[in-house]
């Protein structure tokens, strides 16, 4: 042991190896629980401590990480839940080293009576706009020294980077979920639009059918009318043919009266046709409205 203490180069090499293992372990993690498992495994080889409390700023909240021996827990907390000294630290960033240890730090973990000259160390590290508050309790039995700050900072950086990665990943997943939801909504609405268009098409087809039917009806009426008109006309034509052939007496007594009555009849038919046509027109106009 004493040979290692005396050999600073060797000491650093061992520390570097332990950190390298820690960093590799953390790097492989994809979720916070995995990170916690990594912490349980490796942290004890890097630092002496009783309790560590870390607060990673995440937008307007803090990821609260509590480490006591092999017990590691985490939760999200609001800024107003920070202890008084932590709020001070957040504001002024001045590191703390004190024997006055707030009750809350040790609560449910270790009794003050089990510690010998325990000290609270606290720092505010800043990285990319995000602050990390680190509190550490150590005592004479498990001493923490200034020389350990550098390694604690490295640990903090590594964790901060990993948590940031996890948060961004979660955010991305959330985004893609909401994108997928938006896509689904668009798809649904497209379906609705298609339905409406389909419906419109049907209406148009129906209207077209109605119009075709009306046209047919009108054509039928006009053909019927033409036929009705043509009938007395053909008689008039027939009689006028005969006029050329027969003598005056026959013409006067037989043909003319028939000619007059046919002309009369044609007039009646024409009047009927006109009336019927205007009646149909009025009806069509009414249907259009």
């Amino acid at each position: 042991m004493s040979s290692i203490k005396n050999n600073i180069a060797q000491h650093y090499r061992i520390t570097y190896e332990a950190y390298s293992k820690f960093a590799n372990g953390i790097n492989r993690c994809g979720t916070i629980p995995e990170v916690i498992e990594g912490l349980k495994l490796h942290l004890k080889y890097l630092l002496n401590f009783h309790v560590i409390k870390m607060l990673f700023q995440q937008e307007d909240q803090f990821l609260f990480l509590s480490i006591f021996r092999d017990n590691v827990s985490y939760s999200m907390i609001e800024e107003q839940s920070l202890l008084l000294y932590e709020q001070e630290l957040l504001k002024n960033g001045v590191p703390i080293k004190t024997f006055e240890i707030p009750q809350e730090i040790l609560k449910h973990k270790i009794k003050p009576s089990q510690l010998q000259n325990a000290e609270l160390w606290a720092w505010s590290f800043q990285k990319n706009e995000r602050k990390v508050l680190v509190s550490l309790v150590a005592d004479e039995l498990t001493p923490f020294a200034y020389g350990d700050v550098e390694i604690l900072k490295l640990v903090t950086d590594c964790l901060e980077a990993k948590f940031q990665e996890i948060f961004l990943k979660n955010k991305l997943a959330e985004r893609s979920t909401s994108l997928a939801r938006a896509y689904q909504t668009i798809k649904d609405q497209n379906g609705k639009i298609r339905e409406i268009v389909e419906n419109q098409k049907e209406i148009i087809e129906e209207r077209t059918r109605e119009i075709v039917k009306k046209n047919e009806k009108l054509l039928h009426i006009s053909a019927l009318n033409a036929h009705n008109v043509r009938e007395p006309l053909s008689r008039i034509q027939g009689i006028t043919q005969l006029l050329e052939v027969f003598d005056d007496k026959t013409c006067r007594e037989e043909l003319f009266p028939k000619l007059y009555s046919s002309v009369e009849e044609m007039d009646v038919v024409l009047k009927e046709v006109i009336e019927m046509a205007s009646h149909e027109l009025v009806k069509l106009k009414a249907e259009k409205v």
Partner: protein
Amino acid sequence: MNPIYLIDDQPIANFITRKLLEIEGYTQNIKDFTNPLEAFEIVENEQDDALIFLDLNMPEMSGWEFLEKMKSRGIFHRTVILTSSTSELDHEKAENYPWVIEYVVKPLNKQKFTSLANNLQQKQL
């Protein structure tokens, strides 16, 4: 002379046909009807080879119905359709009745009648 039947709901139409027949020299054995139902009863019992002038548009019975009835009774007197309908469809429909020898659109004038009479003579009236 073979009997000639004129069937048209308009008496004047029958009159015109009769006069035109007169001009061509047909004056005897001509019967005219304004009601096709009555006409059919007589035509049905006609023993000789008759010639029928048939209108299409009649209220009691259309010319088509008259032709169908002839078909169902197996009576095939030569028939001339004489109509004021200019419809091409009617003309085509007439082809379904082989004993219909002519389809004439009214008015039946002297010219049309002469060529019809010539046709009839060639087919031995």
